[in-house]
């Protein structure tokens, strides 16, 4: 392994500091005992965290976001597993179209999706429906799951399935006992990345949430447009904490390199 020279090391340090500093500062501000957004200078306090947990709107929005992320990630995985298997393994008419269709939300701006969904919800009379919100989030997170799963399935040695089949297993048993466990890292990785994306989504959600389905990012946005106080920092610190845990889990079960660099 080659070592970095002093210039490279300095540059790396600068990038890391630039990326981490705002997060560190937000987390520190969250512990301030003051009433303004300021670094804690007179000791640490948990009062703003307490304020979050006593703010019914934030608590409600947190649960909304959590359920939304869990449901949309789970449903996206349930849809993406058979879809990726079909696209990777079979030749059929419309295969290329389906593949493009599933991946297309990646390149459509969330803003556009938000406006489009708003119209759609109005047309079908679904404004304010939590179910339709889940569906909209599925549109956004499915491409991520598909990409991970297609990568996992492409590298799959099909003779392993043939071996199970020859030993007397039925198609369903082969899927349950062999295929699924072997693509499980892709499935879990896909689920987690979908979860994070949904939990974090703001742009589209602004358009299509109703007072009863407001998600945490939307709630924060609304709150921040009215007033800035350290409670925002506390909420941010909590989200950073939750995301960090999810990313750590992702790295453990799948490996971040494989998702971000695409290494098998």
């Amino acid at each position, binding site marked *: 392994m080659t070592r970095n020279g002093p210039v490279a090391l300095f540059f790396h340090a600068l990038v890391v500091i630039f990326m981490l500093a705002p997060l560190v500062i937000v987390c520190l501000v969250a512990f301030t005992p003051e009433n303004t957004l300021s670094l804690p200078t007179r000791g640490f306090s948990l009062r703003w965290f307490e304020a979050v947990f006593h703010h019914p709107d934030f608590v409600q929005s947190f649960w909304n976001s959590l359920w939304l992320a869990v449901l949309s990630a789970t449903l996206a995985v349930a849809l993406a597993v058979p879809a990726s298997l079909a696209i990777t393994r079979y030749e059929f008419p419309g295969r290329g179209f389906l593949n493009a269709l599933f991946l297309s939300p990646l390149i459509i701006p969330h803003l556009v999706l938000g406006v489009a969904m708003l119209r759609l919800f109005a047309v079908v009379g679904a404004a304010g429906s939590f179910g339709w919100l889940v569906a909209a989030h599925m549109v956004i997170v499915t491409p991520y799951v598909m990409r991970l799963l297609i990568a996992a399935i492409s590298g799959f040695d099909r003779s*392993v399935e*043939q*071996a199970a089949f*020859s030993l007397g297993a039925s198609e369903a048993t082969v899927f349950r*006992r062999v295929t699924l466990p072997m693509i499980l890292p892709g499935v879990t990785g896909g689920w987690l990345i979908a979860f994070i994306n949904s939990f974090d989504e703001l742009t589209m959600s602004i358009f299509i949430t109703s007072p009863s389905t407001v998600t945490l990012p939307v709630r924060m946005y609304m709150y921040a447009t009215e007033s800035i106080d350290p409670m925002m920092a506390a909420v941010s610190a909590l989200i950073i904490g939750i995301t960090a845990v999810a990313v750590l889990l992702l790295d453990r079960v799948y490996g971040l390199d494989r998702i971000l660099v695409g290494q098998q």
Partner: protein
Amino acid sequence: MSFLELKNITKRYGPMTAVGDVSLSVEKGEFVSLLGPSGCGKTTTLQMIAGFVEPSAGTIRLDGRDITRAKANSRGLGIVFQSYALFPHMTVFDNVSFGLEMQRVPKGERKPRVEEALSLVHLAPYAKRYPRELSGGQRQRVALARALVIRPPVLLLDEPLSNLDAKLREAMQFELREIQRKVGTTTVMVTHDQAEAFSISDRVVVMEAGRITQIDQPYRIYEHPETEFISRFVGKTNLLPGKVATATGAGATVSLAGIAVPVETAGLSVGETVTLCIRPEKLHLTAPSGGLLTGRVADRFFLGSQWLYHIDGPLGTLMVVTPNDGSTPAEQGAPVGLEWSPSVVRVHRGAMAEAPDVALEVTG
């Protein structure tokens, strides 16, 4: 009636015929190898026996039962894949136990059977390991144990040793044969390695461009190849084009570049174009004036137990293999004589074909 019978099996992919009209009978307990270059249809044939590929025409019968259209999971055959195809998320024990579980063998009976299969392949102490913790040779043994534990009527081996290094491959060849003898399972192996096919098979089926060209015992295929392709594909050989000069009831002489060579093949007619085929180890070096031909040593290669000479002479360059008996070998550039017995010369009728690349690639 044979145990496993393929009758006029054909597989077409669109206009391309991968396997054409293949018929083969395998007796119970026999070890048969399908040998041929890549793309000759041997793997497709095996997959049709296994049930992974459906034949376009023909029938496959196992023990009198027509299994042509039976699903792979109802045939009960044991299959060992080139890539081993172990279940990576299961231990060695669970891998081997999987087939028994699928056959609904009671739990109490499974354990002794798995252990028996693992000790057959000398892997009993590795039962709790995962495939990734094993070497290539060990994985191959697990694959073999997993295929044999269900007591299949037929064991199918798809290039089982080609992922192993040379030394291990040789050791595994003999072990494979020993295990097969012990359990007595009828076995069909696909391989492109003629040494592998010859050393462990009862019979070898040579395939070429989707068709069977010869079915015989290994030494018969080596000594009496029925086509020029086989003599080229199987081992090294000298191929010499010539014309029949004289023919009698019991033999003939063939004129090769003006040199008359006696052969013992009957039924040739004068003037016919033929190709003579002489194995390098059937040629003997003699004193320069003593043999049927004279030549000069163009190159020599030391192979340990043998010497391989390239002899330049009136017939072009001939390969000669002599056993290393400890005596001083002929020097490079030295004049030598060549002699051979007429009985070792094989005659193929017709002109010599251009050497196909596939054959050259695997003979060396």
